[in-house]
């Protein structure tokens, strides 16, 4: 529950491995893609999502019910992992889970900006990060962006947000605020990690994630045709790209894929990269990077069985499951054919 004392990877890894066993496999996904939203909710109720479906069933229905149950289950599982872990392990896991804090802050800022209803914002939050319920309540009660920044004053997001707020006041666009949150998150993500063998593997994984995030961002910008310099959205900390090289590579998908295929990720991500070479669309590219990260995480989890890496590998797999079920439910709601939904899933 805290970052003091020695770490207890044995306990956390044993629990996480047991939970990993109950994640949906190919068979379950095949069944899910042939169900309607109500049946999916029913199916989830009989599996590990039972408690959430029952708790939310009276207030929501259909795809919304599935979505909120998924979010709540995700939050509870990750909160649990943080509760169990101690010492250095806690710090390493919290680093990664802080991305949900970043997500929550961005959601709340956007909600306040668009004058959304408090309860409407609340259901979109994923309470998996480090913020406790009290801070989230205070954030939800904030009625202006200035107040949100005030509540966050004593967190890592405080100073950068305060700086970005001045820019926001001038331009009235959210981009500087959201960038400030993301930057604060990524800065903390990679700073001051230990240097034993498993931690280095973990760091390599985090760097891979930053690299892929950079690549996707650059491609999205290039595809959108907007006149924005990709270097401006560059996230520091990755190994593959520099500010300059990314801006150059973003103009051409083939060159970018070739560049990644020639990089240090080639050996580790073999099959996923071949898929990436064949990827002609942006969505396929993003799926390929997701699958590559997932495969990378799986591999990580088996090299050092008693360290942070199996935990991260589970967190990734769980996130993926939630996104897959959401994709199925949304796809069904929109009436997409089964094979198209299946192509949207990332399964390893």
């Amino acid at each position, binding site marked *: 529950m805290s970052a003091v004392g020695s770490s*207890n990877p*044995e*306990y*956390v*890894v*044993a*629990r996480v*491995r*047991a*939970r990993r066993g109950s994640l949906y496999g190919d068979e379950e996904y095949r069944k899910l893609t042939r169900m309607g939203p109500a049946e999916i909710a029913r199916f989830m109720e009989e599996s590990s999502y039972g408690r959430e479906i029952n708790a939310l069933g009276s207030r929501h229905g259909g795809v919304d019910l599935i979505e909120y149950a998924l979010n709540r289950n995700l939050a509870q599982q990750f909160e649990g992992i943080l509760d*169990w872990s101690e010492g250095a392990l806690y710090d390493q896991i919290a680093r990664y889970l802080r991305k949900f804090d970043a997500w929550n802050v961005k959601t709340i800022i956007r909600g306040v900006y668009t004058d959304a209803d408090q309860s409407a914002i609340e259901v979109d939050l994923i309470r998996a990060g480090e913020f406790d319920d009290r801070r989230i309540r205070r954030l939800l009660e904030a009625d202006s962006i200035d107040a949100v920044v005030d509540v966050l004053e004593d967190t890592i997001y405080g100073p950068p947000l305060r700086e970005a707020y001045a820019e926001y006041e001038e331009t009235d666009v959210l981009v500087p605020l959201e960038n400030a949150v993301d930057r604060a998150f990524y800065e903390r993500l990679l700073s001051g990690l230990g240097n034993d063998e498993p931690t280095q593997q973990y760091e390599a994984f985090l760097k891979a994630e930053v690299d892929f995030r950079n690549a996707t961002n650059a491609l999205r910008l290039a595809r959108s045709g907007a006149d924005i310099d990709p270097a401006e959205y560059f996230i520091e900390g990755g190994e593959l790209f520099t500010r300059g090289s990314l801006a150059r590579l973003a103009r051409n998908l083939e060159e970018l894929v070739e560049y990644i295929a020639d990089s240090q990720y080639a050996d580790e991500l073999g099959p996923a990269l071949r898929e990436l070479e064949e990827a002609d669309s942006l969505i396929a590219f993003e799926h390929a990077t997701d699958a590559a990260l997932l495969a990378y995480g799986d591999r990580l989890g088996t090299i050092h069985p*008693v360290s942070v890496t199996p935990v991260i590998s589970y967190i990734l797999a769980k996130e993926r499951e939630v996104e897959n079920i959401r994709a199925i439910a949304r796809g069904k709601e929109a009436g997409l054919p089964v094979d198209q939904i299946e192509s949207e899933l990332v399964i390893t």
Partner: protein
Amino acid sequence: MLEATNALGNAVLSTGGTLTDPSAAAALAVGLAALGAGYAERGIGSAAVGAMAEDDDLFVNGLILTVLPETIVILALVVVFIV
């Protein structure tokens, strides 16, 4: 731990024996084996409790795996009878 070993050594020395005395060495061997078993059980035990928290059926497996390192101590006890 090390301080305790020193104190033990001093105590043995002050009563006239040495650590090369066979029965003292056997005692030390059993003690160290027990220490090793304890350290091994620490990790296995916490993993077993973690697994049990997820699935109660794992209780028997967890118990067996947790006490397996005890065999080291039992084997070390053989030394006591040999000397």
